[in-house]
């Protein structure tokens, strides 16, 4: 369908094969190929052409002919389910910024015009980068796929033939996947990993968390949640308190956990509490706690959520408490821990502060020197890069998600 020319969020390149010979600068990606196709077979053919006809010679720094052998990076397939409109543009910008980092083939899939007839439009690109002045250029393929009409409901059928075989497949779903839907199921059967951001899900996010926790039972897939990755510095801050040998034993005598989160507009029920929930799930999973009573919303507005955990013989009440704040809704503002051991009392308070978190603790009322951990908010591009780097299994995520599933049990 020619209607594809007006697809959302993309500047349509000419419908011709374009090998590009701009000079390369080390460390900076350069577009080496741009073409277009309207069928899956056409896309596959264009991808094949890149490596048979891409120019091997590009001008040198001073315009001299210079031979650089371009090699395809062969690390992984990245499938980005960009949804519609702005999401597609945002994810495309992030993925382009990562060119040369790892993925060997990236498919950015968008849907359009769901009620119209079926059509497909694809822009096929190769971005190359010189890792160093003496090394050959390495290239990644980037395919923008827009599926119109009914095609948009069968993304897996479009994606499957375009994956490089024998390479791992990572699906990045920046929006809110409906984990029980057919579309998700079809894509996850071919995926090794799925990347999501639970902090952006609608409502309190707990239903999504519950559904996501069920995925490992249905698919052989790893889950990475940016919301959990963003809390790395919080975990470090909390853990560091118990690096002190005299405080370490208190970990097993915790008798209260309080997490305060931002609920800025006076409607706490609507704040996404995935992030506060992950703090509780992390502590519970690391300390081998069990869940006595799963999360329950309080009876009144602003009463937050309650959980009861068990640590050894001790029941540990946990509260997730909404606090009026200018921070984005659902942001963790503080984590408080309380423990009593041999009549000694330890209180730890980890509070968000500008570009970091501050740990304050008192032992029997005596203040322990506070510590600041810098933790500037990490952008999606950094989190995506980090997740791609950590290609192996992440024990923390696995345990935390498993515990989160138990915590939010219906």
């Amino acid at each position: 369908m020619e209607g594809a020319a007006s697809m959302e969020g993309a500047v349509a390149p000419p419908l011709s094969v374009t090998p590009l010979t701009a000079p390369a600068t080390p460390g900076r990606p350069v577009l080496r190929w741009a073409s277009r196709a309207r069928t899956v077979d056409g896309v596959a053919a264009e991808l094949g052409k890149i490596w048979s006809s891409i120019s091997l010679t590009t001008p040198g720094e001073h315009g001299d002919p210079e031979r650089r052998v371009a090699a395809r990076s062969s690390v992984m397939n990245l499938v980005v389910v960009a949804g519609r409109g702005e999401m597609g543009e945002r994810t495309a910008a992030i993925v382009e910024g990562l060119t040369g980092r790892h993925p060997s083939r990236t498919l950015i899939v968008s849907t359009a015009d769901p009620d119209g007839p079926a059509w497909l439009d694809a822009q096929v690109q190769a971005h190359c980068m010189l890792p160093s002045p003496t090394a050959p250029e390495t290239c990644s393929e980037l395919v923008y796929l827009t599926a119109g009409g009914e095609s948009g409901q069968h993304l897996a059928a479009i994606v499957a033939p375009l994956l490089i075989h024998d390479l791992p497949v990572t699906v990045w779903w920046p929006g809110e996947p409906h984990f029980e839907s057919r579309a998700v199921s079809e894509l996850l059967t071919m995926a090794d990993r799925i990347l999501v951001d639970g902090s952006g899900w609608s409502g309190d996010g707990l239903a999504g968390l519950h559904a996501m926790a069920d995925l490992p039972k249905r698919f052989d897939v790893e889950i990475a949640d940016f919301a959990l990755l963003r809390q790395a510095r919080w975990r470090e801050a909390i853990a560091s308190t118990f690096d002190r040998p005299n405080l370490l034993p208190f970990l097993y005598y915790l008798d209260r956990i309080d997490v305060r989160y931002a609920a800025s507009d006076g409607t706490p029920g609507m704040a996404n509490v995935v992030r506060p929930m992950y703090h509780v799930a992390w502590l519970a999973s690391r300390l081998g706690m069990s869940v006595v009573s799963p999360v329950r919303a309080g009876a009144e507005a602003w009463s937050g959520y309650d959980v009861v955990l068990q640590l050894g013989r001790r029941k540990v009440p946990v509260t997730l408490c909404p606090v009026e704040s200018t921070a984005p809704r659902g942001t963790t503002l503080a984590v408080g821990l309380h423990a009593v051991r041999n009549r000694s009392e330890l209180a730890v308070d980890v509070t968000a502060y500008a570009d970091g978190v501050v740990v304050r603790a008192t032992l029997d009322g005596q203040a322990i020197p506070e510590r600041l951990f810098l933790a500037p908010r990490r952008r999606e591009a950094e989190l995506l890069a980090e997740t791609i780097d950590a290609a192996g299994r992440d024990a923390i995520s696995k345990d935390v998600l498993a515990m989160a599933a138990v915590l939010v049990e219906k």
Partner: protein
Amino acid sequence: MTRAAAPSAPPQTIREERLARDGKRKRSAAHPEVNPLREGLRLERVPDPHVMVLFGATGDLSHRKVIPALAQLWRTNLLPSDWALVAIGRRPYDEGTFRMDLAESLHKHCRVQLDEETERQFLDRVFYHRGDFGDDAMYDSLSEKLEGLHVEQATAHNLLFYLATQPSAFPTIVGELGRVGLDHEKHDGGWRRIVIEKPFGRDLDSARKLNREVLRVFRESQVYRIDHYLGKETVRNLMVFRFGNGIFEPLWNRRYVDHIQITVAESIGIEERGSFYEETGAVRDVFQNHLLQLLSLVAMEPPATFAADALRDEKLKVLRACGPPTRQEITRDVVRGQYGPGWVGGQPVKGYREEEEVDPQSETETFVAARLEIDDWRWSGVPFYLRTGKRLARRASEIAIQFRDVPHRLFAESSTDPQPNLLAIRIQPDEGILLRFGSKVPGLGLEIRPVTMDFTYGTAFSVDAPDAYETLLLDAMLGDQSLFTRADEVEAAWAIATPILDGWLDMPAPDFPSYAAGAWGPAEADDLIERDGRRWRRL
């Protein structure tokens, strides 16, 4: 009640075992030794608050390597916010001029430039302390300054000393630190560590003496002897490559390996360090440390764990299995050379004896090649050829594992014999791994041609790898000694290098210069390997 899977320590008693079996086990709350919240946080870990004290802060090494590495760690939030650097030097700077000087070095040498605000924050944590390394008063005032900083910067009495000075100053500094009690670790958690730059000693005796002097003040667990080669990505990857892959280790022995070549070649000369190099030479500068470290990493047995001592125990065994070379072996299996005038990279360059601050009759070696054997079950009979030199044809460092020929020539009709397989681990430049194997040339005949499978780091990971100093500094701050050499390891390496140096003293004066700059070393180096029917790899 729902129970989630939890990480757990193995049961210690019958009762615990029974409770564990019944799913009722609780953690031992009495004496937990390991912080369970630390599990899986290795990459997120920020070192404890501390003050780093840098001796030789105005020197070249500090400005080119150490301080830019610290700035990178700061930029990436890997340093604690409660951190300060006390820079000690002899030059008459004040805080302001030193920071300005430092800013200039950061602009010149930083891998990734810091933004203005980050640079300001970093420089605000740098304090200059002027003084002579042998002056008692300097250490007294340093001690006072550190006390003040611990209060102001909340650095919890943790101290990391870094000696980036001339080696001759090491004993004095260590002794003075002991005198003022800055080595004492406090009961309230304040740790003290010392990083010592290479060269660690000039020979076996001086290394032993230095070890004694250092260990008189610090315990071995506080000492971090740095060899920056061990912090390089490819060198660290060598362990992952060997012990993280199942297919290579079974081949890694005398049954399949014909010989191993380790090359650290430099195209640069001595670069205005004539007086230093005159006292050092290639054996002390590279052979005793970088080359022998690479040798021990490539030849060691798999360690039982990745803990520092387990790793260093295995490396030590390799060095000990090499043993000190005999006089006969030195004459036969070690070659030295010195470059004369020549051409490098299309430019004419001076010979070593014409360099500044170099004796016109100098006998200092700028090249060394050696054939070593490791007498153990794994490597007996497999020669290891090591070479390093200045002003060679190009800068290239690699480890090449040459496998044996196939036992039977099956393709008799082929006009070429299949070449034996080769595995080359490139350390610099273009870090990567290459595997060479034979392949049939397309066509009606049965010609065999060697082809290569080439993994280049840049192809798979176009990420900006940290500099070796960043890796090693962070490890020292975190208390991880894995990539630092232990006292016995240093001495074992000197036990190999020292007889070579001593042996040369008794031999007739060498006929130097023995190779032209831009060549691959003297002809004797080729003879060394060719008499065994082998050749140096062309790099």
